[in-house]
């Protein structure tokens, strides 16, 4: 934080010096924490596109703590009255900053380009404050995936992917009988919560998911359906290996890849690991939605902060337009492994899992079974999400009863509100 404040004037001065000749073209400073591998490559695409359009891009990558360090820097910048043009910020976090009056809207660009017509309504609502767009989504990650190793499944005599949790349990029991770990999992709170939300969707359906994990209805949280979801989560605990505690998600993916485990429940960033290892979807690994017939949505977005100066405002508008352009959405998501947030981008160059994701997205939008992810900060504020993570991870690592878990969850949510 301190370092940031010291360098901020320098960066700003450099921006002015560089930006001066290209005044009309616009300048943006983008704060993000995409610093590794495919993510860095993806943000590089955005930088290139922006510079190709004649703008000046000031990169402010702040790595560390899954964005915690970047948020600390952002706080300092906003307090100092010198916010960046755009920040990698998602979900209800956008609303928190909007309530503080720190955001600028890009409604002009959005209305002219017809964003409402091309974004899923659930996602569009998250991007808006008071009905005006203050953020632009770059991608859609699907959270409710099961990744599987078909060769391992064949060894245990399983030839179809499970479509209900009962089928999943039956398959897992068969795998255990064959001496194979059914579920590759890493015992970190967000991974536990990822499984939990998929189980809630599968056991209760989209309607219940929304009541419990989005609207935080106390009756839903203590209902028998929630108890049943915890029962299923308890079963899943029996399907992970003894050494799961603290494991990173990509190591769990590697277990499926190497045939040490059969399934992993994880968002489609896991696909990037398979593809990076040269595996072919449908042959070396298979992807299938988790039971429930819904779609758990996770989307990254850039949120626009109130900046002053013609040049900065012009750059902000240009960046918004660029992020939502079909060409950028395609190149960015090919690099990151997700699918475009715009539903009208042709997917010819994408892989089969991405195509399935896109088809299911349209179906879920139609059937109103598209739900925002709780575990990935799309549904509820960070404070309430923290209470969910604490409770779910304690349940997963202890012998708490399902009834107690549902009651304690409701209590914790009440405390945090």
């Amino acid at each position, binding site marked *: 934080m301190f370092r940031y404040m010291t360098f901020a004037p320098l960066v700003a001065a450099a921006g002015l010096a560089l930006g001066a000749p290209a005044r009309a073209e616009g300048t943006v400073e983008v704060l993000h924490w995409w610093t590794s591998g495919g993510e860095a490559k993806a943000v590089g695409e955005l930088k290139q596109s922006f510079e190709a359009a004649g703008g000046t891009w000031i990169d402010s990558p702040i790595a560390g703590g899954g964005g915690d360090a970047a*948020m600390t820097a952002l706080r300092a910048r*906003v307090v100092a009255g010198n916010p960046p043009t755009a920040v990698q910020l998602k979900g209800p*976090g956008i609303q928190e900053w909007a309530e503080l009056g720190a955001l600028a809207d890009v409604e002009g660009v959005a209305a002219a380009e017809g964003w409402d017509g091309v974004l899923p309504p659930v996602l569009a609502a998250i991007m808006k404050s008071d009905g005006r767009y203050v953020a632009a989504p770059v991608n859609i990650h699907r959270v409710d995936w099961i990744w599987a190793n078909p060769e391992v499944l064949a060894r245990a005599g399983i030839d179809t992917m499970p479509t209900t949790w009962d089928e999943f349990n039956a398959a897992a029991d068969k795998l255990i009988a064959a001496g194979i770990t059914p579920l590759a999992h890493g015992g970190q709170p967000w991974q536990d919560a990822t499984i939990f939300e998929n189980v809630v969707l599968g056991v209760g359906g989209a309607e219940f998911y929304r009541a419990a994990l989005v609207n935080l209805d106390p009756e839903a949280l203590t209902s028998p359906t929630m108890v049943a979801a915890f029962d299923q989560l308890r079963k899943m605990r029996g399907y992970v290996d003894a*050494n799961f505690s603290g494991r990173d998600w990509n190591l769990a993916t590697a277990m499926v890849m190497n045939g040490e485990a059969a399934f992993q429940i994880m968002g489609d960033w896991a696909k990037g690991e398979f593809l990076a290892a040269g595996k072919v979807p449908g042959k070396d690994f298979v992807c299938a939605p988790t039971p429930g017939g819904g779609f758990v949505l996770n989307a990254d977005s850039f949120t626009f902060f109130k900046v002053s100066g013609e040049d900065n405002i012009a750059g902000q508008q240009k960046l918004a337009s660029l992020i939502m352009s079909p060409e950028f959405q395609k190149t960015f998501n090919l690099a990151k492994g997700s699918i475009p947030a715009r539903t009208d981008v042709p997917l010819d160059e994408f892989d089969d899992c991405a195509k399935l994701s896109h088809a299911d997205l349209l179906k879920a939008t139609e059937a109103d079974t598209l739900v925002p992810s709780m575990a990935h900060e799309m549904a509820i504020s*960070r*404070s309430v999400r*923290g209470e969910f993570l604490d409770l779910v991870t304690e349940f997963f*690592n202890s012998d708490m009863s399902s009834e107690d878990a549902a009651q304690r969850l409701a209590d914790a949510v009440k*405390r945090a509100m």
Partner: protein
Amino acid sequence: MAGTGFLTTLSRGFERRLPLIVVSPLFALSLFFVYGFIAWTVWISFTKSGVMPVYDLSGLAQYERLWTTPRWYVALKNLFIFSSLFIGISMALGIVLAILLDQRIRVEGVIRTIYLYPMALSFIVTGTAWKWILNPGLGIEKLVRDWGFPDFTFDWLVNPDYAIYTIVIAGVWQSSGYAMALFLAGLRSVDDEVLKAAAIDGAGAWRTYTRIVLPSMRPVFLSVVIILAHLAIKSFDLVVALTGGGPGYATDMPATFMYAFAFQRSELGMAAASAVMMLATICAIIVPYLYSELRGARR
């Protein structure tokens, strides 16, 4: 003449105040950056601050919430378990090693250095090394199983009930050598004449140590306790490197609790409340100690 006299008075006054003038910027800085921010934190703990600080007071709401949060109790319990075991075991091991080293043995210098070396590592390195050693799939458990004991289990690191003890193990490994060095210095400073007198009076080794040597080392015990206690209370890096607070939040400490709420959950008010509770805990220990020390000094 009058002018010179005035200048002399001035320069004398300046000389007298010079120390004050030199020290005051530092004093002002520490006043602002230490006590100013303590006051700020206390203020924030009485507000409903979330992602950004707000300054409207809202009473004890954050404290009420803190003391109904199960995770806070886990953190307190862990701090108690960890600090009592860490301080107790490090001191016991330190004194035993020091007494053994004190027997005028041959390669004392080498052995002393070996025991003291862990202290030169940062807690991050210690934590990471022990994470691998204690990991059931990589470390001790796998090693012993590969030796032909397939039922051997040592899974404390991934067992929520025992994970806190792995932090004790790593902490003791790191700090008992340091305790040994302090105790050894204390042992060496015991007057030889007294020891000779004891030997002439026919006191055995056990009696000499328990009745004469150890009681005369009271100040050393006090320093060791204070050094280990502050290591225990600020234990943040060791927990982060070794268990990451897990499994679940089974090895959370007040410091990691505060970090999680301030920087991961955007709950500045709650984090400030927990920080104030930590401060109050330390004050409860330090103030009586300072009081007795200062009173002793005046006497």
